[in-house]
């Protein structure tokens, strides 16, 4: 076991980044032209980084497995992006955003990184406004904010329910501008298959042209990965279908460490599972909890009757409903952080209060909000004694203005009208806080290999607060990596371009080719999808919302058996030197089968409950998570050589000098 150094610069927390920024070695413009940077992924982090590198004058090669950079999954984020602007005069500050994020992450993130994130959050908003992101505005023409879970200020900026899309389009447009100018070479429909190491440094990649199946060798001075999270290890998640861990996992296979892989976020407000054909789960933005009230029936008989379709939720009187979040957490109510809200829903359903036929759903009710908005709207219009119908119409109009597209989406998927009957929701896998271990410079333990956005582990600890993923992706891409990459590249100004025909590259290409041919040659009987589903079941049942040592031990055996079965019995149609989406799925699932195991190991190792990681053995009598700060205030960074070697855990101790470790309370 090694003790890892996060390389956080010294000095007072509020000055670390400012001071450090002015000491990072620079690369002169004439030298930038001679340096090649590979960026993998075109989500918020990748697109913003590639665009910024291009603007600075580096030669950039950017890779995306999509047909266009604009399709990356950042596009699906709905609710918003946080920034410590304090435009609402409600007491927000950089320090408060820093504190909320540390606390929200259950004290398992690195102080230095989080403070930097809070600092640059304000620049992000400015940058995006300048790029033409149409954020919501007030009548006075200034930017509007709303609240998100886990905080008591309004600091979330949004563009209808499509904030991720608008921010991504901003970054995509900036990237497109650089492509047009020729500073960035864009490789669409190209998937990174492996990192190429030269003298212990990341100096290129092997990419597969997904249209032709041809392998390509690309060299560069360094490689920046922004390849997202691994939530799809659970098969059913709110992630897009193509999200995968492969790029990050290939880096791990080259020696990079995977940090805190068991920290996965379960999002409390998703549309419940409806059948076993289901391919993915749909998120309903957390912003809905601003106005929606979560409840289940107070009596089990009522829940039972609702499940059987004998009663409708509207039949239940106010006093027969248990608004359990408001009851258990009066201070934050429906706006408790995601992990808390998710667990509370699970508890309610496990106790038999679930409200859909599978018993795995709770209500999210807007009746009170419609009433409240309707009344206030009628008053604004000068109608002091509005009748119930007027209130309903005005209230529904306001709710539609706020959440119209989400309500519409809900209705499309479920066929129910959420204005009339409450929405049904249930938690689902949404985001992975764990990821490649990186230091303060966002560099992994492999020199020259950087990881940004959800791909790294750095900022969210054991639980991410709502509207912080967009913030982190853009912070890393626009405002951190353009500076910190200098720490590596400034030493490389005399290094000439690498030949992509060198032995290292040829060997790496051969290894990838062998791996693909190996998969094609299994010629078994089961589809890749079948294996992925089975993997998802194992992960959700034993390493999902609640975990315990016994289950995790069992899961490890199951997952190893499944992996063995995969390599014996998977069937992939087509050939490897052609457009073959099934082959793509196959190598992604084969990586998930290893990633899953390391998640289980990490969850087993962490004998405490914190954030998204809830170990049933470690809870209070009231069912709240119990951390063990003495033993586990560290980052677990896993080294994985191959399937036959036992993974090794390395540690980075977390030092909290600016916040006091407290039991997280939202009561």
């Amino acid at each position, binding site marked *: 076991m090694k003790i890892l150094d996060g390389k956080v610069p010294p000095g007072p927390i509020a000055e670390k980044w400012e001071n450090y920024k002015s000491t990072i070695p620079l690369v002169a413009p004439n030298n930038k032209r001679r340096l090649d940077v590979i960026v993998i992924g075109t989500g918020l982090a990748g697109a913003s980084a590639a665009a910024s590198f291009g603007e600075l004058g580096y030669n950039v090669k950017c890779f995306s497995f999509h047909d266009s950079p604009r399709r990356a999954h950042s596009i699906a984020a709905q609710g918003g992006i946080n920034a410590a602007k304090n435009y609402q005069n409600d007491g927000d500050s950089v320090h408060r955003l820093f504190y909320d994020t540390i606390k929200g992450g259950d004290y398992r993130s690195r102080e230095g990184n989080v403070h930097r994130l809070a600092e640059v959050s304000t620049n992000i*908003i400015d940058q995006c406004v300048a790029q033409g992101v149409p954020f919501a505005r007030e009548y006075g*023409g200034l930017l509007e904010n709303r609240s998100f879970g886990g905080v008591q200020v309004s600091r979330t900026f949004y563009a209808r329910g499509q904030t991720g899309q608008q921010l991504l389009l901003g970054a995509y447009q*900036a990237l497109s501008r650089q492509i047009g100018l020729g500073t960035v070479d864009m490789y669409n429909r190209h998937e990174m298959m492996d990192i190429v190491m030269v003298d212990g440094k990341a100096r290129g990649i092997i990419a597969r042209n997904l249209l032709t199946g041809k392998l390509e060798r690309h060299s560069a001075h360094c490689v920046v990965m922004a390849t997202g999270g691994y939530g799809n290890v659970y098969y059913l998640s709110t992630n897009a*279908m193509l999200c995968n861990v492969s790029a990050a996992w290939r880096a791990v296979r080259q020696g990079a460490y995977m940090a805190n892989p068991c920290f996965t976020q379960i999002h409390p407000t998703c549309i419940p599972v409806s059948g076993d054909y289901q391919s993915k789960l749909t998120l309903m933005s957390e912003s809905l909890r601003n106005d929606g009230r979560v409840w289940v029936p107070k009596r089990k008989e009522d829940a039972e009757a609702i499940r059987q379709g004998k009663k409708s939720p509207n039949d239940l009187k106010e006093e027969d409903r248990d608004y359990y979040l408001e009851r258990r957490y009066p201070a934050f109510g429906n706006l408790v952080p995601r992990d808390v809200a998710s667990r509370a829903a699970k508890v309610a359903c496990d106790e038999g209060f679930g409200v859909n036929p599978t018993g795995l759903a709770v209500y999210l009710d807007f009746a009170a909000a419609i009433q409240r908005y309707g009344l206030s709207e009628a008053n604004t219009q000068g109608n002091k004694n509005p009748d119930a119908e007027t209130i309903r119409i005005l209230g529904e109009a306001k709710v539609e203005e706020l959440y119209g597209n989400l309500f519409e*989406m809900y209705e499309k998927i479920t066929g129910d009208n959420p204005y009339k009957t409450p929405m049904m929701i249930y938690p689902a896998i949404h985001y992975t806080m764990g990821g490649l271990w990186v230091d303060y410079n966002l560099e992994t333990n492999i020199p020259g290999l950087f990881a940004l956005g959800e791909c790294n582990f750095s900022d969210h600890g054991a639980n991410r607060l709502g509207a912080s993923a967009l913030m982190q992706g853009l912070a890393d891409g626009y405002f951190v990596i353009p500076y910190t990459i200098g720490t590596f590249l400034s030493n490389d100004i005399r290094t000439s371009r690498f030949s992509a025909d060198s032995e290292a590259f040829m060997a790496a290409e051969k290894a990838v080719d062998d791996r693909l041919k190996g998969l094609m040659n299994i010629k078994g009987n089961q*589809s890749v999808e079948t294996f992925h589903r089975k993997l998802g079941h194992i992960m959700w049942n034993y390493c999902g919302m609640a975990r315990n040592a016994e289950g995790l031990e069992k899961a490890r055996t199951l997952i190893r058996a499944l992996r063995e079965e995969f390599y014996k019995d998977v069937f992939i149609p087509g050939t490897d030197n052609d457009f073959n989406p099934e082959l793509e799925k196959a190598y992604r699932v084969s990586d998930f089968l290893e990633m899953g195991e390391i998640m289980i190991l990490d969850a087993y190792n962490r004998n405490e409950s914190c954030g998204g990681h809830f170990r049933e053995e470690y809870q209070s009598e009231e069912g709240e998570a119990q951390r063990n700060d003495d033993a586990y205030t560290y980052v677990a960074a896993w080294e994985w050589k191959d399937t036959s070697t036992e993974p090794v855990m390395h540690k980075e101790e977390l030092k909290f000098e600016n916040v006091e470790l407290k039991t997280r309370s939202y009561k």
Partner: protein
Amino acid sequence: MKLTLHVWRQKAANDPGTFEKHNVEADEHMSFLEMLDVLNQTLIEQKKEPIAFEHDCREGICGACSMMINGRPHGPLNGTTACQLHMRHFKDGDQIWIEPFRAKAFKVVRDLVVDRSSFDRIIQAGGFISVNTGQAVDGNTIPIEKERSSSSMDAAACIGCGACVAACPNGSAMLFTAAKAAHLGILPQGEVEEDRRVLSMVTQMDKEGFGRCSNTYACEAECPKEISVTNIARLNRAYLKASLRSDL
């Protein structure tokens, strides 16, 4: 429900392609793509090539879906992408014809997958605001009228799926191009380089081999984000203005 699908199968761009018939058993709560997943699972079990179709987020926002369902881009439901279309909108015994988005500028890659990189090139030509990272002033420096920001957002909602091109009898990309021009041009930040932007975007659009808009408005009717053709009028106006008044 039992359905008969007629799915377009085409190996590559230069392959002639043909419809292939399949019977599928579907559930009304399935999404259209999940129904195709079921069919693909069966095909793979029979060791046949599954139907290639583009998909990703399955939430109606990434714009990857690119199929015509019964002759309509994204199928029979207005304002809905194929992934958000659920089988409850079909009846037991229905015949469903599925084919790729058709236009000269969208070459078929395989089955229902088409090449839409022309859209990227239109954006690369000018669909941006030229501001480098770090150059921005405070976000509240320029107040923007709520309505103005809102109509910019209406246009910005475009997901770049190409349904407008597929719906257009002329294979025109006007709605796509106009939506981007409007999104940026309506905002004060984007007004500055509007002339340059519309001139180069339109030039690129023409170069890509898209057809000419003849105001049939099929694009607006079929757009999953219901983007208005008033944006097209706006681009016509902006292009006329840019041609007449600017130095470009």
